[in-house]
């Protein structure tokens, strides 16, 4: 009885905290259903006066969102794949050696990304144009974005590998496996959950990125949804309700996937898979 009362209390507190924290998300949905000037009404309306459901199909067709979202998926998948392919091995090695120099090296890797994308884009653009990478703009964005997300991935996945006991690997080596064999047969499967979860986090980051895409991808047919969104957030063309309708369409699928996957993500992260 006492325990269940405690549970209910905690649940109530947790729900309250979640409601508070999720408010910006709620606000996005509410605004997407308002009329243009209702957005600026005082006092603010917590429920739209007359829900404008038309905003959604309107934005979808006028803004040709299908192609944009497809490009977002390509870019986010490519970035996730490349980050995982390059970052996993690096994280594994960095987890095998533990000393101060590795820590410093790791920190330096992190610091390579200390500048905001808006400052990195000029040198990246100039460099890419020299090597003709702008001819394949989506690939170019994937490359630039991978460099941006990799440090984060390496830090997370390194922690995962540190939880894989090195004795297991040594045993495999004694059994005649090569290092490569031991890596693929022992370390990788044991760290699978952590890698998967980190990759999902990277995917979500890449899905929302827009600074690199905006500058590197000049053809609208190849741009991701974030750039499509950015294009109509200018000073004279910002219809906030439509912008938020766009944002809702754009975010909701990931959000839905996330809510479905999140038990696994959170469980994977906290049940010892990632230490």
């Amino acid at each position, binding site marked *: 009885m006492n325990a269940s009362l405690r549970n209910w209390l905690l649940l109530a507190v947790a729900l309250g905290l979640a409601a508070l924290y999720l408010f910006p998300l709620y606000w996005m949905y509410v605004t997407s259903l308002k009329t243009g000037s209702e957005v600026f*009404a005082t006092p603010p309306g917590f429920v739209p006066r007359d829900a404008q459901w038309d905003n959604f199909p309107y934005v979808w067709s006028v803004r*040709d969102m299908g192609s944009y979202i497809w490009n977002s998926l390509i870019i986010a998948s490519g970035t996730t794949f490349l980050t995982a392919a390059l970052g996993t091995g690096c994280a594994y090695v960095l987890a095998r050696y533990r000393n101060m120099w590795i820590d410093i090296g790791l920190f330096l890797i992190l610091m390579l990304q200390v500048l905001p994308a808006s400052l990195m884009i000029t040198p990246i653009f100039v460099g890419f144009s020299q090597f003709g990478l702008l001819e394949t703009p989506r690939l170019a964005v994937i490359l630039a974005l991978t460099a941006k997300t990799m440090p984060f991935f390496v830090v997370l996945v390194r922690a995962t590998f540190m939880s894989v006991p090195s004795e297991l690997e040594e045993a495999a080596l004694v059994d005649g496996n090569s290092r490569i064999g031991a890596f693929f047969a022992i370390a990788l499967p044991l760290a699978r959950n952590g890698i998967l979860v980190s990759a999902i986090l990277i995917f979500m980051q890449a899905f929302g990125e827009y600074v690199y895409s905006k500058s590197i991808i000049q053809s609208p047919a190849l741009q991701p949804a974030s750039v499509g969104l950015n294009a109509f957030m200018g000073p004279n063309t910002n219809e906030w309700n439509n912008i938020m309708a766009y944002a809702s369409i754009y975010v909701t699928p990931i959000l839905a996937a996330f809510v479905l996957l999140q038990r696994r993500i959170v469980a994977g992260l906290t049940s010892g898979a990632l230490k």
Partner: protein
Amino acid sequence: MMKFKSLAGSVALSGVSVLALAGAAEAQTTITIWSLDDENQPALNLAQEFSDMDNGITVEYREIQFDDVVSESMRAFATGQAPDIIAVDNPEHALFASRGAFLDITDMVAESDVIDPDNYFPGPLASVTWDGKLYGLPKATNTIALYYNKDMFEAAGLDPEDPPATWDELVEAARTLTDPDNNVYGLAFSAKASEEGTFQFLPWAQMAGGGYDNLNAPGVVEALEIWETILDERLASPDSLTRGQWDSTGTFNSGNAAMAISGPWEINRMLEEAQFDWGVTLLPVPEEGAERSSAMGDFNWAIFSTTEHPEEAFQAIEYFASQDDRLFPEFGQLPARSDIEIPETGEPLKDAALEVFLEQLQYAKPRGPHPEWPQISRAIQDAIQATLTGQMTAQAALDQAQATVDGVLE
């Protein structure tokens, strides 16, 4: 019409491949156009029409955000990736023209049957001119005036047919109309630290006998002090400091401000959303009989000097110019030309507003032209913000701005 517009919009947005299909003839020339216009605005639609014409030219159109126009095109130009045609904000035209980034089209215009420079208003024409040569063509023009809520005027005992005409009257009216209990401010405007703040302040400075090159004239100081009064007495929202014109006017439309200073680009939205009777009047002047002035806004067309298809690009611009008479009826924008009679729309509020804006336009002055305009503008914004946040007096802030501008101009 509606159907066509949305169709054109979606086709153009989906980009090259579809456009290329539209004119799948042999020996197609492709030109790229960058502009900030979306499906409700002229450039995208006109570019689409031009591309669809049977002239062997296909257009690749890229919609680009206001804030990104210069940085994107500059970067592209520096690396040889510039588009053929760009729509650039008029104060930034000289930045490119003075450096040879834009194509000198003086001779092409001289031979053109479509374009005659004499038909253009002098202000917009000055903004595309550098060193006596034409480096582009005005795309449209606009300026700012005072919108006011006639219902609120009536309720507050003011005459809705006699809106404020001088600065003092404006402040007085704002005081009368401000009603904090009902969340109503007297005035909505923008003092944002961006080009918008400069655009809103320069008319005041010019009416008082100053200008971007004469910022600490007594009249300019007085103007800035009036802005300070407006904010100190909460006659306008403190958020005017960080809010652009469009957002500020949004509060006017929703009935949270009784007057608003903004441009003709607001008209269509206001017709749709404002649930009250409104009017437009000329910007108030320092005192009765004083010289009128206003800021000239909107974009210019230009061809990059790196283009491989100067003829085709010019052909596109000729087409755009030939369609200038559609700008207002279809898109609510004002052509920068004196030879175009704008027809009545049949919408009384819109026609009345148009009349005021056309008169105001006669007093519109270009910003610059000067290749270092962004730095001049920045100095003006800094002075506005320092004064309105109480960090400096208007006099001190404008003295500092003038010193900075002198440094740029020398």
